[in-house]
């Protein structure tokens, strides 16, 4: 489904230096797989996601999606950006319906789905509110509903639950797993919570700090469907400790710049 | 002590050869300088602006139509004419030669062009029609078509049958090869033309300077009337932009048309002094203005002008000027 081979990304900056955000990333994701990406802040996770989404082009290396070289975004991908990126002049409902409108799908049919999704993310009463009338976490949940509404085959999520409280987060984790189990989407989810990554993923991708590299891929062989009490199991704890170890062991290199 | 700087404003931004007598000639012959005056000639768009400038005392002298002076006085402006330089009205009615129109009566039922509805050409034209028993409100259509190229086109395309304008504007079209017939009312020559006007306060405080300025205009008028080509070349020198494009002969030909449109009206009749204000002309013009409701019925035109500087202004040797011009 997704194939990254030797992908690097260099950003020019205003001060003239070039920042190497991603260095020689290799990754291969099978269709229907649930991948979580963890790594230090600023290590290039968002960059990786944007490259896969086709929103950024790699400086070197190749990205293949569905066995074809990635040349640009695809409407088959649903993205949750790190920022909610809602349109302030649209109500919550209209924001969620945006993909339906853009993809020219049947608005009436999908409106019910949008309502359902809003209910799932706990915003049933808020369909007619405007983004500036919502709290930070509520905005993020609108963005999640929007990414799901057109039922894309692939989901790219950049810290989708970052602004949510533990309870809501657990609940949405379960909902996401539920949706995934039913529709077998390919999911790539960036998270800062190691627990979350183990709980959700088939495979956790650990990235090193700058310049971002994939340092390890850990297959999580916990049974499915996953339940919240698995978190207290020994196997779970072992995964978490392993990943935490991988993350802390990597020496936090200085910023890599190519002058 | 250096002379006070005095501004002389013709009420047009286009100081053509027609205006040479109060611009390029006295400048080139150094007449004003020799009289001890420091004169700056600045064109101002429109007679109203000219009157306002004189009222504000930014401008010492302005050249406006006599009717402008009278209307200003009627509105309380303290402005007076001191010198009549264009002996008869500058307004003209013309039709293309090809149109077959020759007299006022032919205009009945036609669409008539004017430069703008708010010019002296309109009352001039309305009176002319009335004199020929044509109702200017019912029997004709008025259309403001401006001047220059668009007026030429309006005439050529037949949008308008005749055009009510002023002399230099008509001359400008003649330079483009349009051939006109003049349609004149019988009283045309009885109407006064353009005058030099000043503020009443200025009149009181500059009794020395005013005749000196006027004398130079008078001398320059003789100069201009005597030698057209020399005048035109002098004018080109001072105002190079007024030289028409084309070779010397062609440019001269075009400039001559403009020159003649004005200078023809500068010649004084026998027995009349240079610049003298004639009561008959002022009264005739005032009558026309009153009939068009542009002046109150009780307006006394005689307050609008003074001849007190004419004597002084005419104290020069006309022969010497003519000789200089012929050199």
């Amino acid at each position, binding site marked *: 489904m997704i194939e990254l081979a030797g992908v690097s990304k260099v950003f020019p900056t205003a001060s003239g230096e070039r920042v190497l955000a991603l260095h020689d990333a290799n990754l291969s994701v099978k269709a229907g797989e649930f991948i979580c990406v963890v790594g230090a802040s600023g290590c290039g996770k968002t960059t990786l996601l*944007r490259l896969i*989404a086709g*929103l950024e082009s790699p400086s070197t290396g190749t990205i293949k999606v569905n066995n074809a070289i990635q040349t*640009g*975004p*695809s*409407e088959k*991908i649903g*993205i949750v*950006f790190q*920022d909610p*990126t809602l*349109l*302030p*002049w649209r109500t919550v409902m209209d924001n969620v319906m*945006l*993909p339906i*409108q*853009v*993809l020219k799908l049947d608005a009436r049919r999908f409106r019910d789905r949008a309502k359902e999704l809003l209910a799932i993310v706990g915003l049933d*009463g808020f369909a*007619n509110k*405007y*983004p*500036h009338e919502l709290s930070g976490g509520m905005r993020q949940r609108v963005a999640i509903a929007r990414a799901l509404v057109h039922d894309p085959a692939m989901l790219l999520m950049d810290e989708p639950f970052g602004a949510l409280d533990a309870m809501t987060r657990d609940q949405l984790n379960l909902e996401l797993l539920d949706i995934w189990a039913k529709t077998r989407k390919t999911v790539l989810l960036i998270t800062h919570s190691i627990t979350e990554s183990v709980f959700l993923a088939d495979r956790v991708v650990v990235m090193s700090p700058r310049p971002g590299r994939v340092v390890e891929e850990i297959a999580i062989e916990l049974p499915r469907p996953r339940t919240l009490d698995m978190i207290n199991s020994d196997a779970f704890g072992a995964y978490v400790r392993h990943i935490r170890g991988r993350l802390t062991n990597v020496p936090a290199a200085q910023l890599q710049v190519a002058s | 002590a250096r002379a006070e700087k005095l501004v002389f404003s013709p009420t047009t931004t286009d100081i053509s050869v027609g205006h040479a007598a109060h611009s390029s000639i006295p400048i080139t012959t150094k007449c004003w300088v020799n009289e001890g005056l420091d004169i700056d000639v600045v064109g101002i768009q*429109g*007679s*109203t602006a000219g*009157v*306002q400038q004189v*009222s*504000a005392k930014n401008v010492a002298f302005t050249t406006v139509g006599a009717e*402008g002076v009278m*209307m*200003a006085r*009627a*509105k*309380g*402006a303290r402005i007076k004419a001191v010198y009549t330089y264009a002996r008869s009205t500058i307004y003209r009615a013309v039709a293309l030669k090809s149109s077959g129109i020759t007299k006022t009566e032919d205009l009945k039922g036609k669409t008539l062009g004017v430069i*703008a*509805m*708010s*010019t*002296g050409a309109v009352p001039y034209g309305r009176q002319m029609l009335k004199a020929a028993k044509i109702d200017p409100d019912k029997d004709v259509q*008025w*259309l*403001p*078509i*401006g001047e*220059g*190229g*668009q007026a030429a*086109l309006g005439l050529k395309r037949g*949008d308008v049958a005749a055009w009510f304008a002023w002399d230099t504007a008509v001359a400008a079209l003649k330079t483009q090869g349009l051939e006109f017939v003049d349609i004149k009312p019988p009283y045309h020559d009885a109407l006064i033309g353009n005058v030099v006007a000043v503020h009443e306060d200025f009149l009181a405080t500059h009794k020395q300077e005013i005749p000196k300025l006027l004398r130079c205009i008078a001398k320059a008028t003789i100069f201009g009337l005597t030698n057209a080509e020399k005048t035109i070349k002098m004018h080109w020198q001072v105002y190079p932009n007024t030289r028409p494009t084309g070779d010397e002969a062609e440019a001269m030909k075009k400039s001559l048309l403009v020159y003649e449109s004005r200078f023809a009206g500068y010649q004084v009749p026998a027995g009349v002094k240079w610049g003298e204000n004639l009561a008959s002309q002022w009264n005739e013009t005032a009558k026309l203005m009153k009939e068009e409701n*542009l002046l109150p019925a009780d307006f006394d035109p005689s307050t609008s002008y003074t001849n007190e500087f004419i004597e002084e202004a005419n104290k020069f040797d006309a022969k010497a000027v003519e000789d200089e011009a012929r050199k």
Partner: protein
Amino acid sequence: MTVQASDAIVAIDARQVAARPRPWLHWLDRSTSVLFAIAVLAYWEFHVWYFEVEALLLPPPSKIVVALWYGLESGLFLKHLGITVYRALSGFVIATALGIALGALISQFRFFERTVYPWVVALQTVPKIAIAPLILVWCGYGSTSKIFTAALVAFFPVLVNTITGLRSCEQSKRDLMRSLRAGRWLTFRIVELPNALPFIFAGLNVALVFSILGAIVGEFVGSKDGVGFLILDANYQLDIPRVFALLILLGLYGVICHAVLQFAQTKLVFWNEPAKVTNV
């Protein structure tokens, strides 16, 4: 939406809470503009009277009011104002449509930016009065030429503001649309245009005022009706109070238009949360 508030909660009324403490101060604030206008006019009258300014240059407000009254009473002013307003507003509407459309094309297609934009800028730098006679020849002597001039003058502010506004769209919003493979047109309609609205409104504000100038310039060049004609005519007759009365009428029209547009803006660009007034 389900309302499940307890009685205690219902009792909390935001409006009551935010009650104004001193109503007379509020009233004073509202009437500042009127009081200020009166003060300006009073000084004007005094100035003219005290410094004996020629009525030909600057008539006192009292005389202007008289001229205004006569003009309005005879119906002359309103008739001509109607004509001019019709021309100005027509020009404004055309300018708005054209400005937004061309602004969209220029901001979307490099081709238009490279080819059409320089010509538009050059055309704008050309003084309208200089080409007004040509416009007269092309569009005839009727209202069309005045509408054309009005549109021409009003068009540029709309265009420039539209282009700047469309370009000022945040990359994140564009990315959102790109991620859905939204075409140029959808991106424009759904994201860029609403995003540009505050800019466009600034342009419209300028355009609305300038459209009246354009109409009047058109009327100055060749017309027998409209406020421009009346001004020229009064000016020719040296009836300066009347000229000022007409200018004041135009000014009033401008202020009203401006207010209407401001109102429309607050309704349409509601998400641009207004600054919370703190300690004025």
